[in-house]
């Protein structure tokens, strides 16, 4: 296997990882600040993708589509927070799991009600389509490079937001001590709605960006949701830095595992069998990774020690 291929695969893993980060960041923030397990986060991802596809279909502008995705997901997030989620902050995890599971059902079938049962169309903007040649002669799709760039930019932006702004101070305070932010005179319910909408917007952005190279369809959120949970559990729930590291780990493990495990198995099996067993093992790879991390550190890599 050539080094060019390996570098390309590492780029693929990175790209997958940063997109997972967009999902995971919101999820981990919401847990960190509000202590809420939100299974419906994948639905917000789907809302973003559908909003983008709908707007792109009407206007033909990808940029407008992204704006629509951000707005629609943030709005859906804010509404859900105010109508349902708000009542769950002090509820046991179990109730949160059930309620947000119910939200998935409502979002998924509701979207099918509105948009029908067939996948929607959303394409890469012309300016970003096609491959570019990187130093070393690697041909790589420009759009995927852009995704890596956007993902990293969001990561930096989020870091700056949390470390450098007033809102960030409130968020950090909220993670440590809820009574304290009340004492600081912060309107908690406004802060919570804001954080939830922020997380939702990030998920919506991810949905729109990824939707352009994947299929925009009902149920697209659930597989990503499970991966995002794996990410934040590996990173440590509540830690944005952990989510970032976890996302890259999961992205790289999944991509490289799928490529290299079958190759490895070919050393002692025939081609077809190696492909089958290798890819079977690779599909379990990230869960094995998560299991190992939790056995080693029961609260994840950057989680608060129990």
């Amino acid at each position: 296997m050539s080094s060019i291929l390996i570098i390309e695969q590492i780029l693929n893993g990175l790209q997958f990882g940063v997109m997972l980060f967009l999902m995971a960041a919101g999820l981990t923030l919401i847990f960190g600040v509000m202590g809420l397990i939100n299974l419906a986060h994948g639905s917000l991802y789907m809302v973003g993708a559908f909003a983008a596809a709908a707007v792109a279909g009407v206007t033909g502008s990808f940029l407008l589509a992204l704006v629509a995705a951000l707005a629609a997901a943030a709005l859906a997030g804010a509404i859900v927070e105010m109508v349902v989620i708000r009542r769950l902050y002090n509820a046991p995890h179990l109730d949160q799991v059930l309620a947000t599971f119910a939200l998935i059902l409502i979002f998924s079938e509701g979207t099918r009600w509105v948009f029908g049962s067939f996948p929607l169309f959303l394409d890469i903007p012309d300016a970003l389509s096609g491959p570019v040649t990187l130093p070393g002669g690697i041909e790589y799709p420009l759009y995927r490079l852009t995704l890596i760039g956007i993902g990293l930019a969001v990561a930096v932006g989020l870091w700056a937001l949390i470390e450098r702004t007033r809102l960030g101070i409130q968020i950090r305070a909220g993670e440590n001590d809820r009574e304290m932010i009340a004492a600081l005179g912060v309107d908690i319910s406004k802060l919570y709605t804001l954080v939830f909408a922020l997380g939702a917007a990030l998920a919506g952005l991810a949905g729109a960006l990824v939707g352009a190279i994947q299929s925009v369809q009902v149920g697209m959120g659930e597989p990503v949701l499970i991966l995002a949970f794996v990410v934040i559990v590996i990173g440590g729930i509540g830690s944005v830095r952990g989510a970032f590291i976890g996302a890259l780990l999961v992205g790289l493990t999944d991509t490289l595992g799928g490529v290299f495990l079958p190759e490895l198995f070919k050393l002692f099996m025939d081609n077809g069998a190696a492909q089958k067993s290798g890819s079977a093992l690779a599909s379990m790879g990230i869960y094995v990774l998560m299991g190992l991390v939790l056995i080693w550190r029961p609260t994840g890599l950057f989680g608060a020690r129990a």
Partner: protein
Amino acid sequence: MKKFLAAAAVSALCSTGALAEVKVGMITTLSGGGAGLGIDVRDGFMLAIAQSGRDDIEVVIEDDQRKPDIAVQLSDKMIQSERVDVMTGIIWSNLAMAVVPAAVNQNVIYLSPNAGPSPLAGKGCHQNYFNVAWQNDNLHEAAGAYANGTGYKNSFILAPNYPAGVDALTGYKRFFEGDLAGEIYTELGQTDYAAEIAQIRASDADSVFFFLPGGMGISFLKQYADSGIDLPVVGPAFSFDQGILQAVGDAALGVVNTSQWNKDIDNPTNAAFVESFQAEYGRLPSLYASQGFDTANLFLSALDKADPSDADAFREALRAAEFESTRGDFSFGPNHHPVQTIYAREVIKEGDVFTNKILGVALENHSDAYAAECKM
């Protein structure tokens, strides 16, 4: 339970108000992911029933949610409570494997409008089981034959790691005479194919064959088109069907795919079907709709000749397959699977709508590889 009394409008005209005498149970996927296929099969089927003008047929339709255990229970319901004469509707092979063997052993006739898993064509064939669509391998075999005809020598092939995926690659390899530049099993439900596409780029393939049904195919095609690789792609019709083609967009233009049906197959039945389907539902019919339509017409043709209560005669009437198929010539092989012509078609754009046009014949009067194993 949604009961559709056939041709309600017609029966309103005739004031007889005859009681339903024949009962059909349709179990298909109407909610959740993959509902589009089930809806098309149902709409095609009901269109034919309505056009028949018969008011003695009752169709009981149930949603299996694409869950095998639900499908099995609905099948129990159809047989035990509804006491249907004929069952149909299942889209997915794994659901068919859960339902069909038990159903046909309880003396129910099953007409498959879509799934054609290999066990049911070979050792597990049954006199009560008729497949009106295809055996699962058929379209892939045709893709292999087409690749030979086009002169491809070195194919890169990929499919999801599950039985239908394994069958697909086996089917392609059965007919393809060139070499394999690579063979990959992807994860079922995978949405990102960057890693596979990189491997295709690094290989020395001259063509790519893939079987990735549903959203997987949409994702693959969009990403493949964006990768800048210009190797020709061949696939079965499932990723290029009317329902999902619009979601793939330009990325699918020019791709060759194999199918036993297309809307431009030139026969009067097909022309009438395409026109009336569009008139009734306001969209172009898909492959699945044509299969549902053919299934209903096969059933109606047998019903004209024999009563389902006379099982032997009814089976004989089905086996004769004397109906006007949207695909032109249609007959059953010894294992009750179609012997039919499979075409190569190309994705084109008609105005704003993406659709297919036939390039030529990939396999003429093709049966399947399992017929010999069937002892009926």
